[in-house]
């Protein structure tokens, strides 16, 4: 080969870009790993419920009983953290951390240890990040999954280019389009969606997170068309006009949407949101409007328990579930 070719190759090397953007946003994964290793605190809202009514306490006890029963079911099965894909061409296949499942024209069923199953849609890319008894983590780069999970809260997480969905004991559908935008729709229980801030998405609700965009706002699946359009426009632009449209069209059953908007607005806009939310669901006694306007965590969580469609989770019960689970895992 001649010097001329060497020079040409050197020029081509020099011209290579020194910077290449990753195909997906890796920050949610970095942050999640830092949180998991105790190097960062969890996101702004940690769900705990400092005060509850007799009714919600009873409901919580009932839920806990159901959850404990499902834990006992897990105990009765062989405890395992293996990820198993069914209907692989040569029978079942175990997926190890670092491995990836890319479905073709057919969907696949995946067992997540003993905690549940995922239906992985056709043309979907799903990677296994971690498969342990105390932490199951996956990454959905593209396509759609339906998860059915019965495990202690926060054991199962799915990262996407636009956020991290953390299971709180439920069933949900997660979809990622070719641009990395993510849509989470919850069928049972509720899910935390972490995209810079935390969205709490109850059953019957969904949230759309734009890749590289502002955090999405949860909206009821059967909310009116104008409200859904207004939320979509607000998430994209944060324009006053779309905020006004949300406040105008939201009813009492849409209170969760307004509750999330408190954290996404400030100043006069936040005051307008609080006023409208207080009209739809009165601020509970024991907390003040000022606390809500300042986005005080405890006050916000107490307010949350009063909104339609929300379910309480009590920290002591969560801890009990975890203790039971760890005992199962040995």
């Amino acid at each position, binding site marked *: 080969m001649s010097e001329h070719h060497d020079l040409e190759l050197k020029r081509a090397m020099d011209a*290579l870009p020194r910077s290449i953007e990753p195909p997906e946003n890796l920050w949610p994964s970095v942050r999640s790993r*830092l949180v998991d290793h105790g190097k960062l605190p969890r996101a702004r809202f940690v769900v705990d419920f400092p005060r509850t009514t007799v009714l919600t306490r009873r409901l919580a006890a009932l839920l806990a009983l159901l959850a404990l029963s499902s834990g006992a079911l897990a105990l009765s099965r062989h405890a395992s953290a293996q990820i198993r894909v069914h209907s692989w061409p040569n029978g079942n296949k175990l997926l190890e951390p670092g491995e990836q499942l890319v479905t073709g024209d057919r969907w696949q069923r995946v067992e997540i240890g003993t905690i549940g199953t995922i239906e992985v849609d056709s043309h979907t890319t799903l990677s296994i990040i971690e498969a342990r008894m105390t932490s199951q983590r996956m990454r959905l780069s593209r396509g759609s999954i339906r998860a059915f999970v019965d495990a202690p809260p926060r054991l199962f997480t799915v990262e996407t280019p636009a956020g991290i969905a953390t299971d709180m004991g439920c069933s949900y559908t997660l979809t990622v389009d070719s641009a990395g935008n993510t849509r989470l729709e919850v069928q049972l229980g509720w899910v935390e969606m972490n995209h810079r801030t935390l969205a709490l998405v109850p059953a019957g609700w969904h949230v759309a997170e734009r890749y590289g965009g502002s955090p999405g706002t949860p909206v009821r699946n059967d909310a009116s068309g104008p409200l859904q359009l207004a939320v979509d426009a607000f998430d994209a632009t944060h324009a006053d006009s779309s905020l006004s449209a949300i406040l105008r069209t939201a009813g009492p059953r849409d209170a969760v949407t307004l509750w999330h908007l408190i954290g996404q607005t400030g100043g006069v806009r936040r005051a307008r949101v609080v006023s409208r939310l207080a009209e739809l669901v009165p601020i509970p006694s024991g907390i003040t409007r000022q606390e809500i306007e300042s986005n005080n965590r405890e006050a916000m969580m107490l307010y949350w328990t009063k909104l339609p469609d929300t379910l309480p989770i009590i920290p002591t019960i969560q801890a009990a579930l975890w203790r039971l689970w760890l005992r199962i895992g040995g």
Partner: protein
Amino acid sequence: MVVEPGAGVSGSVERARAGDADAFEGVYRAHVGRVYALCLRMSGDNIRAGELTQDVFIRAWDKLDTFRGESAFGSWLHRLATNVVLGALRSERRRSEEPLEHDESDESALPPLEPRPDLGLDLDEAIRSLPPMARQVVVLHDIEGYEHAEIGAMLGIAEGTSKAHCFRARRLLRERLSR
């Protein structure tokens, strides 16, 4: 938060060092492209590159307090990224028991490059198709600007061996690009 490289990064680094995760996100956004490019070229695999990029920023968070500001933060991070990537690739090599110096992959079995008449041959694709050691040496020397003596020390090989890998990599690249 988005911080452009070189613009206000030092403030973000300072705040990140004090435990401000939002500031660290700014640091991440300012530098992720450069780190990912290194990880992609060194590993030759985009999934692995994503994982290595995460590892780099997690290590950076742990080591932020060792950054004294004597060099540019980008240079410090780049050096740290190189060490993280080389460490990970070394462990993988040990696990697969691939000999360190004798990277004699069957060149004829290398994946063929797809001809792309519209764009010309993609040099990055050609680099990705190189045998691992040849790829790592040529990336470190010809793209990242390290000297053979430094590369030898980083990879645990002799300086002459690094030169030989580089020579071989260039030959393979020229062959592939002239096809």
